[in-house]
C-alpha cells in the first residue's frame, strides 16, 4: 500500500541538516506500523513526508500506485483530506469548536455535510459519547487525543498517521489510546503508521521500522 523509495530530506540552513538519507520500506494495507528510533533519528520527519505535510528533498512515496509527492499543492490538500487521518502529539483540536464539531469538520470540507451522526458514532467508538458538546478546554488531555482520533477517522481514511500520540498523556490515557488504535486496526483493518519513542508501544503494533541517523536500521514484525 505504501512504498517508500530512497526518501531524502535535507533541511536547508547555514549548515544543512540531513534528516532522511535514503529511506526505503513497504507498509502493506491493514498494517499497524510503528516508526521508532532515538531522538533525532528522523522518525517525525519521515512521518511528515509520508503524510504530505512536508516536501521531501528526493525519493518517492507511492501510495496505491500513485506517486503522491508529485501532486500539486491544492491536490495534496485534497488527497490528505480524502485519504489520510492525522493524530498529533499535542491534541491539535480547534479550540472554538466542540468535540462533535471538531470531528465532523473534515467531513464538511470533503462532502459539504455536517455529518453529525457519523461524528457521534466515532465519538462513541472512542468512548466520548457523553462529551459531544464539550470544548477542548473542557476535556482532559486523553479525551482531547481521543477526539483527535475520532476526527482522523471521519472520512474513512486509507491511512491514519499518528505522531507520538501518547507523548503528552498519562499512562492510563496512553494505554487507552494505543488499545483504541489496536482495536481500529484489528476490527476495521485500519492501516496505521505511528511514530513513537516508547519501546513498550511495540506490543500494540504489527510492524516496527527502526530508524537511525536518517536510515532504516532494521524492521521487526510482531506476529
Amino acid at each position, binding site marked *: 500500500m505504501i512504498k517508500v523509495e530512497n526518501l531524502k530530506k535535507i533541511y536547508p540552513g547555514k549548515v544543512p541538516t540531513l534528516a532522511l538519507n535514503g529511506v526505503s520500506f513497504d507498509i502493506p494495507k491493514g498494517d499497524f506500523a510503528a516508526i521508532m528510533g532515538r531522538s533525532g533519528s528522523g522518525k517525525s520527519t519521515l512521518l*511528515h513526508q509520508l*503524510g504530505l*505535510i*512536508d516536501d521531501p528533498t528526493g525519493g518517492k512515496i507511492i501510495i496505491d500506485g500513485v506517486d503522491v509527492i508529485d501532486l500539486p*499543492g*491544492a491536490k495534496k*490538500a*485534497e*488527497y*490528505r*483530506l*480524502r485519504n*489520510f487521518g*492525522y493524530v*498529533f502529539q499535542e491534541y*491539535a*483540536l*480547534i*479550540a*472554538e*469548536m466542540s468535540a462533535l*464539531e471538531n470531528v465532523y*469538520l*473534515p467531513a*464538511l*470540507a*470533503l*462532502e*459539504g455535510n*455536517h455529518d453529525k451522526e457519523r461524528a457521534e458514532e466515532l465519538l462513541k467508538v472512542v468512548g466520548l459519547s457523553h462529551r459531544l458538546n464539550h*470544548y477542548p478546554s473542557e476535556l482532559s488531555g486523553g479525551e482531547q487525543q481521543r477526539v483527535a482520533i475520532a*476526527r*482522523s477517522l471521519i*472520512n474513512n481514511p486509507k491511512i491514519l498517521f499518528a505522531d507520538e500520540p501518547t507523548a503528552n498523556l498519562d499512562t492510563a490515557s496512553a494505554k487507552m489510546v494505543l488499545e483504541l488504535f489496536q482495536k481500529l486496526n484489528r476490527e476495521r483493518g485500519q492501516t496505521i503508521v505511528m511514530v513513537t519513542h516508547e519501546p513498550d508501544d511495540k506490543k500494540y503494533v504489527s510492524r516496527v521500522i527502526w530508524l537511525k541517523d536518517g536510515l532504516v536500521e532494521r524492521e521487526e514484525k510482531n506476529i
Partner: protein
Amino acid sequence: MPSLESVKTAFFIAYKSIVKGNRSTSALLIFVLSLSFLELMFITGILGGLTNGIVQTVVNTSTSHIEIMPQEEPTVKNYIEHQEELRRDIEAIPGVIATARHYTLGGSFSYDKEKSGKFKTVSAQIYGIDPDQEKKVSTIADYIIDGKYLDGLSTDEILLGAGLAGGYGLPQPNDLGGVRAGDKVQVAYSNGIVRSYTVKGVYNVVIGTITNAAFITSKEADSILSTYNEASEVLVKVDQSGAALDKYVSEIKKVAPNLVVKKYTDIISIIGTLLDAFDLISYIVSIISIVVAAITIFVLIYVSAVNKRRQIGILKAIGIKENTIVLSYVFQSLFYAVCGIIVGLVLLFGILSPAIREHPLRLPFGNVYLVYTGWRVVISVISLLLAGFFGGLIPARIVARENILKAIWG
C-alpha cells in the same frame, strides 16, 4: 472559484471563530469600522449639504430653475417680446409654479457719502423686476438687511446689493463706500440716461454675484429702455429639479421655439468649480476613510491570523485547503464590515442626521444639513465592503501560505 464544500467549511470556521472568539475585540473592531463609515458618510453628507445649500441659494436668488433668454438664431434679438403672453403660456405647463421677467441694464452708480461733492462711482448690473411677481421665483426679499423691498410701481426707488452699497463687512474691492436705506444714488445708464434714486433697501446674498447688483422696477426699466411688455430674461420656477428639468425645458421650447432655454445647471458653471472642489475634497476624505478602515481590518485580521497560526497549520494538516482558510477570514472581515456599516447607518440616520436636522450648521447663506444621494450611500457601503474584503484577504493569504510544520510548531 471555491467549491460549495469550501464555502460551507469557510463559513462554518468563520462562524465559530466569531461566536467563540474574543467579544471585546469584535466589539472594538465593529466600533472602529462604524466610526470609519460614519466619518465617510458625515463628510460626504456635510459637503453634499454645503453644495446643496450653495446651489439652492443661487437658484433662489439668481437663476431660478430655468432661464429663458432672447432669440439668438436666425437673428439676435435684445429682448423677449410679448413676455406677458409668453409667461402665461409657460405658467399653463403642469408643474410650473411661477415665472418672472427681468430687464438687465448696465449702469454707473455715483454716491456722495460726505455730501462734499466728491462722488464715488461704481459700475454694476441693474435688474428691472416686477417686485410682486419676483417674490414668487426669488427669495431676495428674505435677504433685506436694511430698509425694505421694492414696491410694485415705484419708479424712483432702488434696491442695492450689500456688495455694491459697501460698508457691510463684505470684502469688495469696489463699492459705493457705505450706502444706507434712504440715501440718494445717481445712476448713469449705458444709453446715456441719468436717474436719481432713493435707496429703498439693501440686501445681502453671500453666494454668487447678485450681491454686487441692484434692482429697480420693470416700469422704471421700461421708461429707460423705451420698451413695453418685453424682457431680457424670464425666470421659471418649477416644482421639481434635477433630471425632470429636461422635461420642462422641452415643454417650454414647444411654447417658445426661437428662444434660448437653459437649466440652472447649465448656467452656474462658475459655481461649478467650487462644487467640483467640494466633490474632490469629498472623494479624498472618502478614500482616506476607506484606506483607514481597510488598514484597521488588515491589522486586526493579521493579528488574529498570526495568533491562530497553529490552528491554521492544523486545519491545513487535516486537509482543509488554503483557499478555504483564507475565505474563512474574508467571511470574518466581511461580517465585521457589515456590522460596522449597520452600526454606522444606525448612528447616522438614527442619531446624527436627526440631530443636525434639529440643529443645522448655520452659515451666512443659510442652514446646512446632511444631504445624501442614494448612490452615494450605496458607493460608501460598497467601498467599506471592499475594504473589508481586501483587509481580510491579504493578511489571511500571508499567514495561510506558511508551511504547515512551521505554522504548527513555530
